[in-house]
C-alpha cells in the first residue's frame, strides 16, 4: 500500500479558496483518481470532483496534478508521487471554478459545438468492428457499416477534457479565443469534408481575431494533450490554409 498526503484545492460558494491535506492509503497500482476517491470516501464527502469512465475516454476528470494538466484516471500515483512532500491536486486553469475540483466547462462546449464537429477517430475506424454473435455469447462476428456511414461516427481522438484550454497561455487572457480544441476540431472537420462551401465556412470560422490568429505559439496545448491530438499543428495548418486562400484571392483565383 502507498501512504500519500493529498493536498487538494478547496472552494465552496461563500468561502475563501484554500487547500486541505488528506492522508490516504491506496494500492501500489492505484491511479490518482483512486486516491482522490479514497480522500472522498475516508475523509470528506463534501469534496467534489468530476469523473465517469475511469479509462481516459470521457475526459471529465481532467485536473492539475503537481501543477501539470493530466487525466487522473490514467495517471499512476507512483509516476507523480516520489514519497516526499504532498501530492498537489488542483482544478484546471482558465475555467471558472464551481466547487473544489469541478470547473464550469459550459463555455468550452459552446465553442466546441460552434465548430460543428464531425470527427472520426482514425484509430477506431481502422480496427475491425465486432459484436457478440448469437449463441453462447462468447464468439464475436464482424459488423458491417453501411458505406458512407462510418464517417459520421462521433468517436474522436479529442475527448474534450479541456486540458489544452488549461495549458494554453493565450486562454489565460481571452475568454473569446476559440481555443486549441475547437480549432483542432475545425481542422479535422475540414479534412473530412468534401463540400467546398462547407470547407470555406469552416475556414472562415477559424479566421478572425478570436480564431487562429489569437494563438501566440506557446505549443503547450500539444504538449499537454493526453490523446495526442496535436492542436497546435492543426492551428498552424489552418493558418497556412488561410494564408494560401488569401493569396489566391489576391490574384483573383
Amino acid at each position: 500500500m502507498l501512504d500519500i498526503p493529498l493536498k487538494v484545492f478547496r472552494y465552496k460558494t461563500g468561502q475563501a479558496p484554500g487547500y486541505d491535506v488528506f492522508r490516504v492509503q491506496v494500492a501500489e497500482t492505484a491511479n490518482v483518481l483512486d486516491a482522490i476517491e479514497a480522500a472522498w470516501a475516508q475523509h470528506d464527502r463534501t469534496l467534489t470532483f468530476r469523473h465517469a469512465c475511469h479509462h481516459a475516454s470521457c475526459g471529465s476528470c481532467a485536473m492539475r496534478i503537481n501543477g501539470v494538466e493530466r487525466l487522473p484516471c490514467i495517471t499512476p500515483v507512483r509516476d507523480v508521487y516520489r514519497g516526499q512532500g504532498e501530492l498537489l491536486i488542483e482544478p484546471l486553469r482558465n475555467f471558472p471554478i464551481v466547487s473544489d475540483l469541478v470547473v464550469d466547462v459550459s463555455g468550452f462546449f459552446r465553442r466546441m459545438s460552434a465548430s460543428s464537429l464531425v470527427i472520426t477517430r482514425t484509430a477506431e475506424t481502422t480496427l475491425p468492428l465486432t459484436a457478440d454473435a448469437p449463441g453462447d455469447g462468447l464468439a464475436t462476428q464482424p459488423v458491417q457499416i453501411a458505406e458512407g456511414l462510418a464517417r459520421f461516427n462521433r468517436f474522436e481522438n479529442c475527448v474534450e477534457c479541456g486540458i489544452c484550454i488549461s495549458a494554453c497561455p493565450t486562454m489565460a487572457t481571452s475568454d473569446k479565443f476559440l481555443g486549441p480544441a475547437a480549432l483542432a476540431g475545425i481542422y479535422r472537420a475540414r479534412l473530412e469534408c468534401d463540400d467546398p462551401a462547407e470547407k470555406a465556412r469552416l475556414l472562415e470560422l477559424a479566421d478572425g481575431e478570436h480564431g487562429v490568429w489569437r494563438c501566440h505559439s506557446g505549443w503547450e496545448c500539444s504538449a499537454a494533450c493526453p490523446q495526442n491530438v496535436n492542436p497546435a499543428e492543426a492551428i498552424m495548418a489552418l493558418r497556412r490554409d488561410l494564408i494560401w486562400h488569401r493569396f489566391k484571392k489576391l490574384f483573383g483565383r
Partner: protein
Amino acid sequence: MLTPLQPSRVRRAARWADVRHRGLGMIAYVLNRITGIGLVVYLYLHLAVLSLLAGGPGAWDPFITLARSPLFLVLDVILIAGWLINGLNGVRVTLTGFGVGVGSQKAMFVGLMVVAIAGLIVMALMVFGG
C-alpha cells in the same frame, strides 16, 4: 446558488510568464514577450535620448561620455541579446505560422538560440573590444 470562482485578470495575465512545469515552446513564448517588451521600452528610451540633440553639443556630449562607460556597454549587450532572441524566435514563429517546420519547432528554437548566443558573443566582443 453557486458562485463560480474567477481569478482576477491580473492573476490570469500573470500566467503568461509562468513557465513552471512547461515545455520549450512556452519558454520560447515567454522569452519573446520579455524581449518584445524590452525592445519597446528601449525604443522610447532611444527617442528620449535622441531628443537631447535638440539641446546642442552641451546636452549631447555628456551623454556620449556616459554611453561609453562600462555599465552602458553592458546595457548595449543586453539590448543586442534581446534583439537577437526576439528576431530569430520571430523567424521561427513566422515559419511555423506559414506551416513550415511545424513538426520541428523545438529543434528550430534550439538551433536559432545557438545562433543567437554565437552572434551575441561576437557582438559583445565587438562592443567591448571596439
